[in-house]
């Protein structure tokens, strides 16, 4: 479904993150004349255009969408070390209570699955991770925090995410990673890109400094 989004953009609803990423990448790679931007969301693509647009954009986008072969994401495996609970995971106890399992079991489930980056948004390098076990589907905080520390590993709305910088936020924080996730001076500024596979690894407090900084495989 295509919806108008102001006088210079449309929102193309495509249903699933992979198609949104695929369509946006295709439009960015070879933009139709007059198209100035193509930005994926969770299940849609914002397509922006300028005054020099020629022809019917809706048709051009639908043609592109029909021709889209399965999007082939890089699918790199990214391993993220996490210090769970305590001062670094202020909401771990609440999440355990909501899930009806122990804190240790929350950690076990969070580290047992391979997640996938559905899309990046909210802040530079913030990746929305899908593929969580159902038990970890918890709602956002009723009142968002004004400050969530950089590296906070959090849950909300059936997804997981890691805060790349200190930011306001309403997700429930269960741990913290010492690695950095965004560096605007790198050619690939975000460590986690759409399509990447992600696994969280529990670490001990003593290991924090060993992992601090940019990961070796960035």
């Amino acid at each position, binding site marked *: 479904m295509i919806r108008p*989004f*102001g*006088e210079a953009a449309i929102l193309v609803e495509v249903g699933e993150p992979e198609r949104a990423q695929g369509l946006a990448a295709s439009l960015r790679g070879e933009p139709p004349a007059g198209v100035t931007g193509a930005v994926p*969301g969770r*299940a*849609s693509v914002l397509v922006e255009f300028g005054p020099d647009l020629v022809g019917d954009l809706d048709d051009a986008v639908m043609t592109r969408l029909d021709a889209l072969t399965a999007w082939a994401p890089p699918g790199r495996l990214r391993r993220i070390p996490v210090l769970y609970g305590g001062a670094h995971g202020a909401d771990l106890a609440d999440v355990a209570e909501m899930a009806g399992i122990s804190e240790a079991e929350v950690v076990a489930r969070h580290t047992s699955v391979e997640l996938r980056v559905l899309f990046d948004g909210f802040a530079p390098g913030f990746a929305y991770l899908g593929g969580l076990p159902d038990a970890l589907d918890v709602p956002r905080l009723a009142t968002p925090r004004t400050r969530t520390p950089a590296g906070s590993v959090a849950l909300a709305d059936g997804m997981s995410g890691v805060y790349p910088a200190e930011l306001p936020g309403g997700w429930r924080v269960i741990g913290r990673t010492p690695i950095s996730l965004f560096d605007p001076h790198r050619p690939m500024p*975000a460590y986690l890109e759409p399509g990447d596979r992600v696994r969280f690894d529990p670490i001990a407090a003593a290991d924090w400094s060993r992992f601090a900084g940019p990961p070796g495989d960035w």
Partner: protein
Amino acid sequence: MSIEIVEPGMLTSVQDPSGRGAWRHLGVPVGGAADPWNARLANRLAGNDDDTALLEMTVAGPTLRFRQPARVAITGRLDASLDGVPFAANAARDVRAGALLRVGNGAGARGYLAIGGGVNVEPVLGSASTDLRTGFGGFEGRALRSGDRLEIGTRSSSGAHRWTGSWPAGPIRVVPGPHADQFSPDALTGAAWRVGVEADRTGVRLDGAAPPSDALEVASMALVLGAIQVPPDRRPIMMLADRPVTGGYPVPAVVIGADIGRVAQLRAGDQVRFASVSIEEARSALRRAESELAALEALDGPRDDELGWAGSHR
């Protein structure tokens, strides 16, 4: 050579009019000048290309000392004085080395200071703009502070100008947003609003009669400039330059491109009304705003030797 920040005002930062839209798929906000119209105008007046780096000043402006002669233009809604004498907005002027420029309050939220040759900062991800939230770009990735010294370009070769155009007035014009079929823009256009205290580069939040409750679930989507999001507290937010790439609240309406700068000039407590227009009217308003931006008149300034220009600055 440089300009020195004597006092930074409420929030002064290096921005450019376009920002960095090409990195949004990695979550990087567009950023750039909150009032891109006045930012582009300032650059044109100073003889710069539209997208040259300049200073965005907020509500209570900075005090600056020029350590070299420069051609300067101020636009927007903040008042200024040069060495104690009122400094007219919307016209370029040559200032001498040692001049003290004070930017104070005014009739709106933002002013722009363009300097012939621009402010010299290293572009990051394709833009000179400061991302104040994550902390990169611009000058050391942060707002300016007392004692900062900014390198500025040498004067540009094209002439100085005065602006003779005008901006639109009246209600803020909107077109339907992606969720207008489930959440009518009438909820916005049929009510009177007041700007809340949360009015910044991310967006302008409104207080007023809450629109009808619509428990509308929306999957996070990328947001255009001017999108009016309505979160569960039912206080609409008009999204500006530093908006997050994606948002998950319904968008009943979108501020038209020609009125974005007016939204960026709103201050807490200001009254706001909306009017619905057609897509065609919105595009026509944008063309009109472009042509107003080009309403420039060449200025015959004082001769360089009267201002103490040295050959090395040419």
